[in-house]
């Protein structure tokens, strides 16, 4: 067992604690960035002027009329930018564009004494546009060959030989939708300038260091002149990894030019029409199976719909390609990946970061092929699970692959799958207008940033003379419970009660050069950095205590506020006394911690290496009931077993699993992003740009029975206190819902019906799927035979 993962006696990690902010959340006392506005004097409010065209050159911009609106203070345009006019790191995202690249693109911003003044000022700005041809749908971009960034190629084995030798070969095409993050708190930044010209930006950002860098380059100042703080976020889900920077830069620019605090908060419509989303993908594939249901070869082309700028599309694509295998061993694999450039919002990180899109391709094809192969889909999936001796197509050994089988059988047993399958058969036989189905899907998700450099973290831990502890780290709190876990790690490492530790908000002047709190890595990276800082302090305190205790410094233990030796009968000192003594002996009581994940290597061009520290595993079973009249459905029961290692904080982890699962189910079944792809005047407009038209899961989508279990005896040797990441992997367990819907729709037709299901599988989509199954039932035996031939399975 590594020292990083070893867990001491009476550890605070592992206790099921509520969220550290819970009492503040429930009373409304918790402050979010926009709650600070009323507590700040003389704040100006920002409002964007948004393009009404999907693609247009801005031929004239007349801002003077805005100044005639009472309360308008300043209009910000590209001419005001002292530094670099770019909101990203790729220099393809002009902050003030000369060409509007999507419907809703902000071309300038108005600052007003009130939000109303700014809004009216923005309405008064006159812009002339010369509309240009636009590409809205991903297929349009493919047809036009309009791509951006670097395409990638991943190959392993001999795909051509395997396909030509395969007993069954199927091919298909599948385009599926993206997803809006719909964090309840929209993008917001509040910027101030102090007497020395230092910029202080409070931002709802997952990546304060990058927000800092972009504010600095827009303003043309050094990073040390900009401090970014994030108190907490009202949800982020990846949507605040890259996207907050430009908004923070606008606020900072306004504050610099006016000398007054500037608040920029998007309303929901602005947020939906301006900020990036999960990438929708187009995929084309060919898959070969042997006679025993083994997937022997897969060839696929993935096209990510990147939107107007590159953003994080390249790493998202890389992760999609690395996860097209999901949890299945595919000995021969060839994947080509490319990023379409379209006139839409710049698609970005979203929980899973391409992983869900890659996996959806293989889960969809398994669901479609199983009936054609004559296999129950559940059995087909189980047959193809990775085994311990396997490696991924990019060359990483699948360590602990046996946990897939363990999770699978745990779900089968605790979920009473066999009993329920029999019950479902009886139900379906006696209900002509309703059908049920249960489906099981696995997840294997690689943990670490694909880009090796991001796998580092810092922390700052202060012990004050009275023994109280203040910790600071580079991670941000977006609801995922990172701060709760970090408090538990610090209390465990220092051996003090949890109440002795306080956590200060994330700020770039405390811990510099941080990575985004993303890729499920927050607890792994920051926890290890905090542990490192605490261990430094503990190592300095041990000699202080060793003398009075009469033992060797090596034998000093810190447990729950007491400092003692190895044995129960040893003398004890209080933590406070040791700290007090240490101060008087002039021992340094604070430390900066650092952590870098060891053992990673990745050749991005060749798509080979070991980019992940480990894999997180999970299995879900979902049962649905579909109404044959409408296609409406209900999620009756979900059983999950998830491998989170030895949990740092079980209540938090179960919350992440449940929440991730429901969010994934939302993506796959309900949430329906629709852009106007017509040639009408609203081309490129997001049609679902409000909560009334873009529907998130509500209470009615919660499974009637929802059982979540953490895999037992799951110590992870390479991670802090033996734990594993949890933020993203459970989202992808929601494939079980989609596959159950497919099977329930198929149950309206004859046995062996293969059903195509669009994504999202809305009630309408399920209705057409079950109609398709019903009409298959009206075919004669010859047709049924024809349906089983490979050639029939193409297109969506």
């Amino acid at each position, binding site marked *: 067992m590594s020292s990083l993962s070893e867990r001491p006696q009476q550890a605070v990690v592992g206790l099921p604690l*509520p*969220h550290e902010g*819970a*009492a*503040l*959340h*429930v*009373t*409304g*006392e918790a402050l*979010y960035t*926009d*709650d600070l506005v*009323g*507590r700040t004097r003389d704040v100006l409010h920002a409002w964007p002027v948004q393009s009404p065209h999907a693609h247009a050159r801005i031929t004239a911009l007349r801002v003077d009329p805005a100044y005639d609106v009472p309360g308008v203070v300043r209009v910000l345009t590209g001419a005001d930018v002292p530094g670099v006019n770019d909101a990203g790191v790729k220099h393809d995202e002009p902050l003030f564009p000369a060409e509007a690249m999507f419907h809703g693109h902000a071309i300038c911003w108005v600052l007003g004494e009130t939000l109303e003044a700014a*809004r009216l000022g923005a309405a008064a700005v006159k812009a002339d546009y010369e509309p240009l041809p636009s590409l809205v749908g991903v297929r349009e971009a493919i047809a036009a060959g309009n791509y951006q960034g670097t395409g990638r190629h991943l190959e392993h084995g001999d795909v051509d030989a395997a396909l030509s030798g395969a007993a069954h070969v199927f091919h298909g095409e599948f385009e599926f939708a993206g997803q809006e*993050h*719909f*964090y*309840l*708190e929209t993008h917001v930044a509040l910027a101030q300038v102090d007497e020395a010209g230092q910029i202080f930006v409070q931002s709802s950002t997952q990546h304060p260091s990058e927000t800092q860098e972009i504010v600095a380059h827009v303003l043309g100042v050094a990073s040390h002149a900009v401090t970014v703080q994030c108190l*907490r*976020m*009202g*949800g*982020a*889900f990846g949507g605040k990894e890259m996207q907050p920077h430009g908004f923070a830069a606008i606020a900072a620019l306004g504050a610099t030019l006016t000398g007054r605090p500037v608040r920029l908060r998007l*309303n*929901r419509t602005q947020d939906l029409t301006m900020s990036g989303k999960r990438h929708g993908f187009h995929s084309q594939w060919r898959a070969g199976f042997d006679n025993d249901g083994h997937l022997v070869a897969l060839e696929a082309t993935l096209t990510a719909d990147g939107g107007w700028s590159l953003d994080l599309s390249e790493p998202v694509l890389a992760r999609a390609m690395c996860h097209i295998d999901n949890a299945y061993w595919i000995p021969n694999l060839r994947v080509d990946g490319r990023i379409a450039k379209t006139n839409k919002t710049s698609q970005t990180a979203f929980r899973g970061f391409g992983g869900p899109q890659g996996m959806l391709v293989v889960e969809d094809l398994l669901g479609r092929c199983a009936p054609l192969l004559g296999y129950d889909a559940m059995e087909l999936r189980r047959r193809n699970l990775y085994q311990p001796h396997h490696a991924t197509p990019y060359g990483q050994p699948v360590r602990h692959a046996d946990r897939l089988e363990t999770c699978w059988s745990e779900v089968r047993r605790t979920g009473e799958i066999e009993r329920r399958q029999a019950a479902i058969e009886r139900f379906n036989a006696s209900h002509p*207008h309703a059908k049920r189905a249960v489906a099981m899907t696995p997840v294997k998700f690689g943990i670490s940033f694909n880009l090796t450099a991001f796998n580092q973290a810092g922390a700052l831990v202060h012990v004050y003379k009275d023994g109280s502890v203040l910790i600071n780290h580079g991670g941000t709190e977006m*609801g995922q419970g990172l701060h709760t876990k970090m408090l538990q790690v610090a209390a465990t490492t220092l051996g003090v009660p949890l109440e002795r530790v306080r956590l200060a908000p994330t700020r770039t002047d405390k811990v510099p050069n941080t990575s985004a709190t993303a890729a499920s890595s927050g607890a792994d990276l920051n926890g290890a950095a905090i542990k490192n800082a605490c261990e430094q302090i503990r190592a300095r305190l041990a000699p202080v205590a060793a003398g009075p205790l009469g033992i060797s410094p090596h034998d000093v233990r810190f447990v729950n506020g007491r400092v003692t030796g190895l044995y129960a009968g040893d003398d004890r000192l209080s933590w406070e006394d040791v700290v007090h003594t240490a101060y008087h002996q002039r021992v340094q009581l604070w430390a900066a911690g650092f952590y870098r994940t060891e053992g990673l290597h990745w050749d991005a061009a060749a798509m080979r290496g070991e980019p992940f520290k480990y894999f997180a595993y999970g299995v879900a079973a979902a049962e649905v009931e579909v109404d044959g*009249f*409408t296609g409406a459905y*209900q999620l009756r029961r979900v059983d999950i077993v998830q491998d989170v290692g030895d949990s740092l904080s079980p*209540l*938090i982890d179960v*919350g992440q699993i*449940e*929440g*991730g699962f429901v*969010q994934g189910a939302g993506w796959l079944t309900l949430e*329906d992003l*629709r852009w106007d792809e017509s040639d009408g005047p609203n081309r490129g407009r997001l*049609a*679902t740009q*409000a909560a*009334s*038209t873009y*529907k*998130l*899961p*509500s*209470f*009615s*989508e*919660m499974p009637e029975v*929802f059982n979540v279990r953490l895999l037992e005896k799951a110590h992870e040797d390479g991670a802090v206190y033996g734990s594993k990441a949890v933020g993203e992997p459970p989202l992808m367990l929601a494939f079980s819902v989609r596959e159950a819907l497919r099977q329930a729709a198929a149950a309206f037709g004859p046995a062996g019906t293969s059903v195509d299901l669009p994504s999202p599988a809305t009630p*309408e989509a399920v*209705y*057409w799927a079950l109609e398709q199954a019903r009409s298959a039932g009206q075919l004669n035996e010859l047709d049924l035979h024809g349906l089983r031939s490979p050639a029939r399975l193409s297109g969506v």
Partner: protein
Amino acid sequence: MSTTIKVNGADLAIDGVPVHTTALDWLRDRGLTGAKEGCAEGECGACSILVARPGIDSPTEWTAVNACLLPVASLDGQEVVTAEGLGSSNALHPVQQELAVRGGSQCGFCTPGFVCSMAAEYYRPTRGAGACDHEHGPNGFDLHALSGNLCRCTGYRPIQDAAYALRDPEADDALAARRTAPPPPPATTRLAGAGAEFLRPAALDDVLEVLADRPEARIVAGSTDAGVEVNLRGVRAPLVVAVDRLAELREFSFGPDEVRIGAALTLSEIERLLAGRVPLLAQMFPQFASRLIRNGATIGGNLGTASPIGDTPPALLALDASVVLVSRRGERVVALADYFTGYRQTLKAPDELIRSVLVPLPLAPLTAFHKIAKRRFDDISSVAVGYGIDVVDGYVRQARIGLGGVAATPLRARATEEALTGKPWTECTVREAAAVMAAEGTPMDDHRASASYRSAMLGQSLLRFFAQHLEIEEVSA
């Protein structure tokens, strides 16, 4: 005239506030930042607050509403409690306690809104009397109380656990005690500034006079529609007239010949006043938006706004309802089937107000309300169908079918009604009529549904109605 609101026990003045300021923005400007703006259209519930409203089962009921939709002026003289007023981090309210310890908050942004919606249900006088099923806890907690609150983090399970763990309020609970006295009476309000004016007249005659002089006035009751226009479309009406507290618009009577429902009664109030006596409406209420919206939205407002996708019109058309229109010129009764004249256009003259809705008795024996939407709780119809069918001796004596979502107005499915009337109530008749029904209206493609799905759903709806009727027959036989 005092223009103050009692918030968490303290009187706060609203004089000088711009007329279109929402209650949410006003509270947040006063430093009460617990309530949040998540969507600004009453869909997410992050702005939920409690208002002391006249009750049905107790003199006052703590009613949860969306603060983002209400003009703050409409709360003049009222009592409001926010999440901050329920408890503090040192002294949590039972609702806050359960949510906190059970993992009911993750990012916490939606949480104060959940707390208020949950507290309203906690204090519902008749909670505990109902059945325990999938949507009701062992403590009687009705999950529909939370249908207007969205959480993007938790997946809802811990929030449900918290709701179902609530006990009854303690004997010394001040908010529970407050229920036993009436709420403040309606204030007569006039708030003016920056070219706009908000009026809450004391009586119907005063409103009719204003309307006669200034027919362009924007009438609001629960403001669930007008609030969206203010927030999302920047509408700033020069004159807003509130009618939701007018006694003349809040009348209710049942039988013997008709049900008379005051236009300013909220959907929540009507649901409880009817208590299941109009089964078609009883089926519709839980599907009408969310509890938060139903607590504000009125039946008059739903007909006044005349949306083709409103939920009450298909139901009321099937019930053969009429509306009573009133102006200074007098009253007239208009059949709902004639009332809608075009997209968001009606027979109502600019100086007229809907006073009440009349539902004739006896009711048709076979009724149902079908709503097709993406989401079961709180969604807008792709298609809605109301049925009122009378079968005598196995033959359809009369059929009334109201449709929503398939034309520019709500409408009666006349051809389908004709295809059923006088025919035997059999699968054969229904199949033929379903084909007719699938051709009713002129449905469109939009982001909610395709035109072909809408048409298919019309036909399927009749088949489903028949199948469900058969099931009921079999169970009762």
